[in-house]
């Protein structure tokens, strides 16, 4: 069986941590980099085994006040607490929580200017005073999210139906900025789930268990294809998601979100997008994605 692996990427700057389904790209800059990578690697070693130990519980519907023993599992629980009235399992936050946990180790290194832990698009980052971080939004050509050290945000996460995790909704991409990656991860997933047109004939859905027999989503239908939608339908679906996003902002769960479906996008909360290509995206281009 594989054990945790760590290697520097060919650029010599970034660290790649891999174990089973977890792939982290870590970058730290500043004099403390090597120290940071040593700490990250050491912490990473046992992280998957800790999660696996509590996996059956983590795959069950989240209960308010549930107690887990692993640090990452506790982060997951904390992140889903505000959403316990809906169907949600702590697994929804796993990617972000792992990123947060590793970032916390890294932050203990002295002399860091900036650091991030990117877990498949769910990112935890640290910025020393005066630093900023910039993320390209793949779904929006030319789109950038830039955050500086003055805010209280340390997490960005992205969710969408065609991504690695299953989505109940039809958003191509929902990117969320929040205080940590786990919170961003949960919110991005929940908002992406809400960008939806239930029973639309052009949306193909399959019970999650058919795709992954042990999915925490069980018999819930997950989106496997989104066909043609009219402008009105696109707006209506984005409206559904924007409502949830706004509620998350109002409850101070997230800083802001960018929701994208086909050629339209919406921005909720803190203005995080810097630039988006001004040309409308040709339909043909979009249907590749």
């Amino acid at each position: 069986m594989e054990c945790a692996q760590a290697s520097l990427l060919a650029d010599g700057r970034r660290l790649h941590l891999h174990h089973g389904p977890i792939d982290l790209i870590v970058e730290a800059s500043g004099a403390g980099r090597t120290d940071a990578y040593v700490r990250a690697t050491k912490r990473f070693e046992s992280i998957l085994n800790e999660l696996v130990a509590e996996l059956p519980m983590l795959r069950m519907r989240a209960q308010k006040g549930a107690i887990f023993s692993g640090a990452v599992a506790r982060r997951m629980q904390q992140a889903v607490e505000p959403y316990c009235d809906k169907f949600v399992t702590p697994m929804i936050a796993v990617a972000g929580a792992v990123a947060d946990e590793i970032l916390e180790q890294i932050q203990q290194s002295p002399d860091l200017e900036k650091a991030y832990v990117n877990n498949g698009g769910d990112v935890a980052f640290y910025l020393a005073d005066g630093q900023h971080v910039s993320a390209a939004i793949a779904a929006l050509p030319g789109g950038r999210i830039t955050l500086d050290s003055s805010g209280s945000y340390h997490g960005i996460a992205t969710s969408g139906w065609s991504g690695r995790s299953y989505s109940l909704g039809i958003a191509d991409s929902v990117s969320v900025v929040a205080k940590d990656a786990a919170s961003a991860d949960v919110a991005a997933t929940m908002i992406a789930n809400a960008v939806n047109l239930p029973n639309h004939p052009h949306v193909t859905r399959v019970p999650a268990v058919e795709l992954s027999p042990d999915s925490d989503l069980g018999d819930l239908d997950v989106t496997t294809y989104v066909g043609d939608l009219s402008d009105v339908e696109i707006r209506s679906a984005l409206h559904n998601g924007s409502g949830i996003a706004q509620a998350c902002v109002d409850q101070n769960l997230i800083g802001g979100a960018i929701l994208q479906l086909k050629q339209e996008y919406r921005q909720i909360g803190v203005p995080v997008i810097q630039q988006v290509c001004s040309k409308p995206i040709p339909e043909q281009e979009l249907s590749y994605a």
Partner: protein
Amino acid sequence: MSQPAPKIRCDACPVMCFVAEGKTGACDRYANLDGQIVRCDPLTILNRRIAQGGEVTPFLKSEWDGSLVRDDEVFVTANGAGTTYPDYKPAPFIVSREVDGVDFVTVVTEAIFSYCGVKVKIDTDRHLGHEGAVVRSAGEAIGHVTTSEYGSQMLSLGGVDHLTGGSKAEGRVTCDSLMKLCNKEAVELTIDGGSTVVVQAGHAPIVDGHQEERMRVGCGSATIGMFASQWKGLVDEVVVVDDHITGVVSEHQAGKVLDWPDTGIKITGRRSTPGRYFQVAEPGLGWGGTNVDDPLSILGPWNPKKGAKPGLTMLMVSTTGEQFGYFVLDDALVPQKEELPDNLRPSVDLIAENCEPALCTVLFMGGAGGSLRSGVTENPVKLTRSVQALKTSVTCGGAPLYVWPGGGITVMVDVTRMPENSFGYVPTPALVAPLEFTVARDDYKTLGGHDSAVRSIGDILESGGEYGADIRAISPPEGSELNARTKR
């Protein structure tokens, strides 16, 4: 899949996922292929080439000198745009891709070929169906009969309209048929108002249960032109029966230059030029792609005033030499069938010998536009132009391909030159195919890419290398279709 899909437990990591048949586990690295856990990242391609005995040159492991790779035997990694396995999403790698001026990329998807199909060339004289007729697989429309080519019938299958524009069943069957054809498997196709044909890349077509042997040497007229001198003096008349142009040697220019005497023969059908006849019968599965089983049925009454006389001999032969008959006019000027004289047999055999083996060929055709969007370079159109200017070479599983001129990167590739099982699908439905861009480092910089991104392709191979303790290439198990599997 009509049977309940078997699921198996993957023991590659502590998560121990149950993986359904044809799916990947949570890591997207290991998948259940026919009940076995296989690793499905670009290393598989590498391993498959090893299994095929192909030469492997992992240029990224050695110092790449920056020159363009032209040799199709050189291994080129599938640059995150393609795969060898259903549902494979190379997410672990794309997150490491660097883009100028940003710290990381938020990404949810990887591009696939929604716009793709296959062009099928079926070497046969037989009429398979009218141009534009719908081609079906398992009852679903998956394409149409397109413009025929010399000695071949052409099918155009797949495309976005059938993949995603029609019903769910149509999309699924289309995707499944395309994938099978591309993976060199046999697929039975029925043509509305026409034939049923079994198509398999690199194999002879089977038309309505009859396996084609030969591709014709030429049309009836061309055959006359090629062989007239060999028939002179051995026989009084030769008719080469062909649905396209039936040739008659005594009237044909090739006969005239040999001073071939008139025979008073009368051919039904529309005369094009002397000795060349269109539409002697209906298209079909008989002689020379006509519906004719009795070749005499294309003849009218013989004219004694123009040279017809008792005892006149005639050879009738199809364009492939598969059918032939020898006839002698009786006293009433009616042709009577007789044994083919030995001195004519070589000419019939020569026609057959000059025919090439009939084959089905399958070209995969797809547009690579989408895969460029997600970050090969910052400015995708530059890569497009670079490909069109032949500065960036594109390969499909290491096989050379033709880049269609004009906008975008639309490519065609002969699937028989690709590694086994190169094609997969996603439930979109759409095909997933390996696709590699190879560019000299200096050119890549001018494309708006940058050095580290060149190396990030290397990350994938490098990772494989560094995981060397965990990954090894092993030969395929005896009798197994698997060309590669990697397990600890």
